[in-house]
């Protein structure tokens, strides 16, 4: 476990995936899908790894910002296991250290480092003060002994958060994902500045001078931050990050992604996938420059293709359905999520009459 790891992210290591089966999961149940990074994203990530700076990723929802971190973890795990891909039975210690901090509207910067259960400690202290005989009757012998032990060690009340864990006792550079940072209060990114800069923090609850020291270059965390741009981030915060806007994948990349996701099925149903991508392209072009509309992202395309391929019907029927997408609201709904945008699509591509349908079916 002490060999030097090459941290350069290539994107060439991909977990196996078969349509209809469960994706690969690690010991914590986190999912790993095949991921196809575009060259710009790869370079930005490698730059962030080399310069030891956090990488801030923005982009349209569903374009794969969050999945990048898992892809990096998978690659580093493969490298650590010397090319043997991990599977669901791989031990916890063989997986690369990966910490996810899902930010919510009530998240505080402190939560990512640690929480100290002061109330729990107070309760324990009160229990210790009661009559020992009654305490044992009340709690049982084992529980009372555990309580005594707990009281002697303050760290038992300390719970480290994702960033705190990543800064503590690491042998390699762990991966930290701070997901959707824009969800939190606008002060949140500013509160993180010191930790991101110096990568150390104090724990005053444990007494004077209790500090988690900054890691060295060999075990500095690789920090990825995603944002949906719901709130602007402060300049002081932006200055400390490298920034990359993840663009929507082009037609070629989209095909590659679908191929990786559906494998054999893609080759059998190429006609359906081709037509689906055409339809998707129509929708994308229609909504791209519409103020207030959001064009579908990669995840919506994958849902759309899944919905088409999982149908137990002939390709001809599926193609007919696709040709009359405006009339098939259940399919359209996987691509366009608001009724205003759906109406816009239907107005531009009015549904065909039944008679029309039959003609196109016989053609196809």
């Amino acid at each position, binding site marked *: 476990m002490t060999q030097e790891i090459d941290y350069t992210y290539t994107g060439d290591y991909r977990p196996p995936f078969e349509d209809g089966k469960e994706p690969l999961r690690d010991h914590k149940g986190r999912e790993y899908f095949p991921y196809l990074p575009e060259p710009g994203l790869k370079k930005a990530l490698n730059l962030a790894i080399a310069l030891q700076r956090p990488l801030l990723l923005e982009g349209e929802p569903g374009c794969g910002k969050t999945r990048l971190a898992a892809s990096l973890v998978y690659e580093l795990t493969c490298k650590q296991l010397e090319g043997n891909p991990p599977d669901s039975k791989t031990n916890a210690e063989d997986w690369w250290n990966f910490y996810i901090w899902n930010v919510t509207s009530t998240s505080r910067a402190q939560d990512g480092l640690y929480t100290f259960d002061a109330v729990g400690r107070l309760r324990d202290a009160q229990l210790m003060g009661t009559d020992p005989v009654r305490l044992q009757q009340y709690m049982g012998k084992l529980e009372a002994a555990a309580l005594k032990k707990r009281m002697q060690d303050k760290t038992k009340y300390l719970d480290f958060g994702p960033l705190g864990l990543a800064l503590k006792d690491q042998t390699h550079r762990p991966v930290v994902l701070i997901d959707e940072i824009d969800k939190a209060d606008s002060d949140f990114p500013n509160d993180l500045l010191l930790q991101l800069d110096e990568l150390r923090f104090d724990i005053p609850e444990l007494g004077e001078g209790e500090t988690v020291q900054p890691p060295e270059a060999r075990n500095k965390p690789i920090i990825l931050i995603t944002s949906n741009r*719901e709130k602007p981030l402060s*300049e002081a915060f932006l200055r400390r990050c490298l920034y990359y806007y993840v663009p929507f994948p082009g037609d070629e990349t989209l095909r590659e992604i679908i191929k990786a996701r559906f494998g054999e099925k893609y080759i059998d149903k190429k006609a359906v996938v081709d037509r689906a991508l055409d339809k998707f392209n129509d929708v994308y072009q229609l909504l791209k420059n519409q103020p207030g509309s959001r064009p579908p992202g990669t995840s919506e395309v994958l849902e759309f293709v899944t919905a088409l391929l999982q149908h137990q019907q002939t390709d001809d029927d599926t193609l007919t359905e696709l040709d009359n997408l405006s009339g098939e609201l259940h399919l359209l709904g996987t691509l366009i999520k608001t009724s205003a945008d759906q109406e816009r699509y239907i107005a531009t591509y009015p549904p065909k009459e039944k008679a029309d349908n039959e003609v196109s079916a016989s053609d196809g």
Partner: protein
Amino acid sequence: MAELSFPFLDLFQQLQGAGMKLSPEQYDLLRQAIGKGFGQEDWKWDELRQVCRVLWVKPSRNYDGQTFEQVFDQYVRQKQEEIRAQLTVTQPEAKTAPPKPAQPMRQWPRVPPRKKSVSQPEATTAEEKVPTAFKTGVEGLPQMDDPRFKVTPRQMPLPQRTILDSWQLLRRPLREGIRTELDLPATIRCISQVGYFSDVVMRPVKNKRAELIVLVDDGNVMLPYQPALQPLVRAIETQQITPAKLYRFTTYPDEYLYDWVQPSHAIPLDQVLAQMHARRTIVLVWGDAGVTQTNPADAHRKGLLDFLNRLCPCVRSLIWLNPLPPYRWTGTLAEEVAYWLDGRMTHLNVFQVLTLAKKPAGNDRIFLRSPG
């Protein structure tokens, strides 16, 4: 090429000169990156462009992507010319690569058509384009010496101090959210009422979170009053009031509001309303509320009422600043709007504005008085 110890320092300085607020530390990042072999694959400009973009462009006005692209393109052209000049001196037959075609400009979103100010007839000649409020003493119009009909922007300043004071008053802390704080007085009251301790009373924590949204009518009628708005705009631009956002509209906001900096950029009203917070958002509307219309068009009245009905549930406080004095509202649409708003419309008067700002925000949503 640039000096070896300070690669591309001239590019960095050009970007700084173009308004990007880059720090020396950020230049050092580029040096480090180049030292580690980034940005030099095949010696292509685009490789360097990608690296610089990742390092220096951010979603902020001071690290703007468009400025970066323009300066970078210019830098590349300049360097290519220098190289070409050197080559022609040394080897006149060497061919240089054709200059890179100019990057296509960013595609702008389609802009929904803005409605015209309904309070003014179509202007055809230059003279007719003069805003109504300035039409005093023009030949053919009755001379008006009555001071009640003369309004000049200088007579109605809201000093910046008042603006900042009222912001402090408006954003005072409110209790909101989950009840997580022990309400000691209420608990004691409860004990004394029941006679024994039954349960603790909790209350939400006080939070000082407020945001200001200013909707500015930039129709022709409002043009003369623009100077009176300046203290507020300045306070927002210099971030003395923050977080705050400015939007434009004409006559009344319908489906779209317009960006303050780029008036051609439309933002759906739904989107702005959806981002408001009923306990935090304070909205200030700057407009005449149809004060020039003694016989208002139904569409105008309905549009205003619809807008206010949609806005009220989304905000904590609402203040309508009307630059014209109240005696001018009588008999116009503005009088009706003032009635619906139930005292929330005010003239630019220091005392009145501060009184409105002091008004405590209730726990209920704001209700409009039903039109009479």
